[in-house]
């Protein structure tokens, strides 16, 4: 008790997971439950001429079959988008309906056409194959840069040039001028390839309707249960919100893919009422590949302008962002306000401009995936920096150092106003770089590289220094930017009569360890043992409200909401204690779980005060009984973690295979509650970012077929793809939230992709290699090695 903040406390949630007692949605069995199989379009773009469900309906064990027509007849439009980004000229964002099941046309491989509900999963699958769909296959387009050209096949007949919106940010005139006056310009054109999140738990949902109470329960593997309830009730089905309970129990990883409101959630709820029985749907892995929101997929031209000294003068970006066939929940925000606003990086660049077009294609929807926009921003900035350093014959670390924004703590020195709307809270960018260089023994590494080259080995060193925005966000600000939701967080802290504490948080843990971290905060503040605190999340019936977990916001926003309730409890507890001790509140101090009259040994413990609050026989006049407070925390600003990463690679001369020899990550996430958990978040993020650099990439062919539709075809990192990571930190507290924390969930993903690509290019630069498309597979690397007649 006490001093728990900052300790690597072992996780309290572990035991159920290591003993097989976790409770994931697919583990839940309800009497009378039926199983659903969705019939999905095998074509990327096809007119649905006819759907014949008669054979499926006649199959023994089938309970019901519904099609897109049933939803159209019921007047159910589709799942909504939660963010509006209008055109540069003020025209409204083009936002097509995203049907629950399609009736007229399939617009990507995996679009749902019908649902078969049966007594068990085997029968549902058998019968789904008896649904006869007649398709008229149409031409498809999958690349966003192609999709916006005149004459490209249209995803939605009424949306010209497949353009959802265009958007710009920054000062175009000043930026163009900077390029005119530049001594050196570095240019890269690349694809930040599409990724498939692949949480290991497939998405799953159960709909349960109670005919007597007219109430629904939705169990769903979501990062975001309250928002799912709000969107589904208010914007899709028109069900009164208080009649719906959404439960997201244990959830097996999300990485962004489980933030969004999915059609299957609507399907199981609506169907459960039609058949008056519970309906379960669990994705098969190929459905996860086809329909879990994908990430990235930007086609970009990026340019950087420098003066003679290597000082940055300007950054100019043109990006075509792929939205997929529809607009997913947060999709418009990802390439705009989570990407364009991060283009300052950690440099003093005086002029920045981004021009962006968001395109519909005949592919699955693209939305937030770990980092969401920020990895794309860091990638282009950091690839440009390393390339520019090479072109100008400067050391990549020194070029960065030269251009860093000087340290500012946000208290003595003001926050840093960027050219692209955001104001950074606090930063010490040279500090993380110095620490990383030291940890890596940079000088030694360069010597080793020289020696390796003499021996004919191909070794490279790559940098990435980044800043990101977390803790989304001040609600008023994001509202002005097009968010259709507030982005605060809620918490209820309930002190039970015996002094035990239950915390209800609107954040949702699906691996982040909130049950431990949040308990540490509460136990530390109340001076009680960790085991006296229980954290509850993921149930709209018990948690007051919640905006969910994404964008590394749980601790910065959710933790801050808990802190507000803690302070209210301490204040009220102090008044009760003062009454019991017959003194003034001002005479009391609270420490080690008790209120003590200053300068005396007279004290009353947290447990006694708790009991008094619920048995108020001897009680302050006018004080309400009970010791429980709900709070909503709306942040004053985003938080801005930053860091410096260094990758060391060696490339096999014969095969082109890249081996990651060392990976050094120094991050600054503000204050740290549980270092062990933060390190774990960094490790996992690194794996996904390195995966993008070397292994992962979704591939659609010209007809819109997903060629990487299984774990056999889409390469994810396995245990033997990595060395042990070398992880360290500096601490620059966030000046504007009560815990001084910034968020740690995405740092690794954001920083590692450019670091690894830079290392590979560094290794191959003596061969004249300037760029290699991601993922940098042995084949691509080998070809690049041999392209210049080497």
């Amino acid at each position, binding site marked *: 008790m006490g001093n728990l903040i900052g300790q690597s406390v072992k996780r309290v949630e572990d035991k159920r997971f290591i003993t097989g007692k976790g409770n994931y949605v697919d583990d839940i069995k309800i009497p009378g439950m039926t199983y659903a199989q969705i019939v999905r379009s095998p074509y990327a773009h096809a007119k649905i001429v006819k759907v014949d469900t008669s054979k499926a309906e006649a199959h023994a064990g089938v309970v019901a079959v519904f099609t897109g027509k049933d939803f159209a007849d019921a007047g159910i439009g589709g799942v909504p988008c939660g963010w509006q980004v209008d055109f540069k000229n003020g025209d409204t964002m083009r936002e097509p309906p995203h049907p629950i099941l399609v009736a007229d046309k399939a617009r990507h491989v995996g679009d749902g056409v019908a649902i078969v509900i049966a007594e068990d999963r085997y029968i549902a699958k058998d019968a789904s194959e008896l649904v006869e769909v007649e398709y008229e296959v149409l031409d498809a387009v999958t690349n966003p840069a192609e999709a916006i050209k005149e004459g490209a096949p249209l995803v939605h007949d009424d949306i010209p040039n497949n353009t959802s919106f265009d958007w710009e940010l920054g000062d175009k005139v000043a930026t163009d001028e900077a390029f005119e006056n530049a001594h050196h310009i570095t240019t890269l054109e690349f694809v930040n390839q599409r990724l498939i999140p692949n949480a290991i738990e497939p998405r799953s949902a159960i709909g349960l309707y109670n005919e007597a109470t007219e109430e629904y329960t939705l169990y769903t593997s979501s990062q975001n249960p309250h928002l799912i309830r709000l969107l589904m009730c208010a914007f899709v089905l028109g069900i009164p919100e208080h009649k719906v309970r959404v439960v997201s129990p244990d959830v097996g990883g999300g990485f962004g893919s489980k933030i969004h409101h999915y059609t299957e959630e609507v399907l199981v709820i609506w169907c459960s009422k039609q058949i008056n029985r519970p309906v379960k749907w669990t994705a098969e892995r190929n459905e996860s590949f086809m329909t879990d929101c994908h990430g990235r997929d930007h086609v970009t031209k990026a340019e950087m302008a420098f003066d003679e000294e290597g000082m940055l003068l300007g950054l100019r970006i043109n990006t075509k962002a792929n939205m997929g066939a529809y607009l997913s929940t947060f999709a418009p925000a990802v390439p705009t306000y989570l990407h364009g606003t991060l283009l300052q990086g950690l440099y003093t660049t005086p002029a920045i401009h981004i021009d962006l077009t968001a395109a519909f294609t005949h592919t699955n929807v693209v939305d937030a995936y770990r980092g969401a926009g920020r990895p794309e921003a860091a990638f282009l900035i950091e690839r440009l920096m390393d390339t520019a350093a090479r072109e100008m014959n400067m050391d990549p670390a020194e070029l960065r150092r030269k251009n860093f924004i000087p340290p500012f703590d946000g208290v003595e020195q003001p926050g840093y106003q960027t050219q692209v709307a955001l104001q950074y809270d606090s930063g010490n960018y040279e500090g993380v770089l110095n620490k990383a260089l030291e940890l890596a023994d940079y000088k030694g590494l360069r010597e080793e590289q020289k020696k390796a080259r003499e021996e004919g080995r191909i070794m490279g060193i790559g940098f990435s220094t980044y800043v990101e925005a977390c803790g989304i966000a001040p609600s008023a600000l994001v509202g002005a930017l097009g968010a259709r939701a507030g982005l605060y967080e809620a918490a209820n802290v309930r002190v039970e009569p015996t002094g035990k504490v239950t915390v209800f948080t609107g954040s949702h843990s699906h*691996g982040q360890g909130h049950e431990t971290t949040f308990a540490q905060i509460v136990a530390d503040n109340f001076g009680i043992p960790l085991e006296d605190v229980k954290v509850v999340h993921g149930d709209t019936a018990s948690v007051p409200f919640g905006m969910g977990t994404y964008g590394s916001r749980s601790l910065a926003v959710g933790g801050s909401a808990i802190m507000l309730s803690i302070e209210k409890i301490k204040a009220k507890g102090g008044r009760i204690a003062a009454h019991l001790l017959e003194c003034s509140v001002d005479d009391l101090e609270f420490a080690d779980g008790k209120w003590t009259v200053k300068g005396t040994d007279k004290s009353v413990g947290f447990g006694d005060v708790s009991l008094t609050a619920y048995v108020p026989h001897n009680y302050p006049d006018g004080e309400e009984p009970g010791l429980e407070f709900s709070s909503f925390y709306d942040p004053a600003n985003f938080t801005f973690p930053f860091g410096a990463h260094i990758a060391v690679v060696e490339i096999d001369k014969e095969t082109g295979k890249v081996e990651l020899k060392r990976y050094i990550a120094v991050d600054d996430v503000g204050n740290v509650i549980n270092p062990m958990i933060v390190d774990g978040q960094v490790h996992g993020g690194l794996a996904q970012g390195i995966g993008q650099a070397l292994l992962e990439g979704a591939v659609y062919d010209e007809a819109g077929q997903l060629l990487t539709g299984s774990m056999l075809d889409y390469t994810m990192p396995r245990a033997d793809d990595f060395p042990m990571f070398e992880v360290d930190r500096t601490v620059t507290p966030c000046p504007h939230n009560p815990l001084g924390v910034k968020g740690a969930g995405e740092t690794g993903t954001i920083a590692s992709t450019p670091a690894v690509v830079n290392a590979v290019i560094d290794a191959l630069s003596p061969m004249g290699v300037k760029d290699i498309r991601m993922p940098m597979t042995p084949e691509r690397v080998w070809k690049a090695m041999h392209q210049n007649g080497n």
Partner: protein
Amino acid sequence: MKHSISMTVNGKEYSGEVEPRVLLVHFIRDHLGLTGTHIGCDTTQCGACTILMDGAAIKSCTVFAVQAEGAQITTIEGMASNGELHPLQEGFHEEHGLQCGFCTPGMIMTSVELLNQNPNPTEAEIRHGLEGNYCRCTGYHNIVKAVQYAASKQA
């Protein structure tokens, strides 16, 4: 047509009637109610469904229940004995070898066989031994340390 099958799971005798096509993982989860064994991919890629069958780690999504007739099965629920965690379970907890927990049962069951075959593995041997199991949360870093923890504990 249904077949009668019986097997020993975590030391207890179970029998049931299944269609020949029912996968062992569905029998374990749906018929026996042992939901600690997870399904991550249905195609033998992810390893979340790994169990021990007659002492060998197998992916139970790729075995029919009828093939397990008479077998000795151990699932994650059978790993702790008398309330005491197996050294691997302890290792995953001590070394923060899990985050969301979904891959964890399969990781632990695979590691049982890994350590049975090689009680004192190098880091590279552990990484190679875990190649058949995906984890998307941990970057494998602390999973490797968890297996090392168990190896030194069992030594």
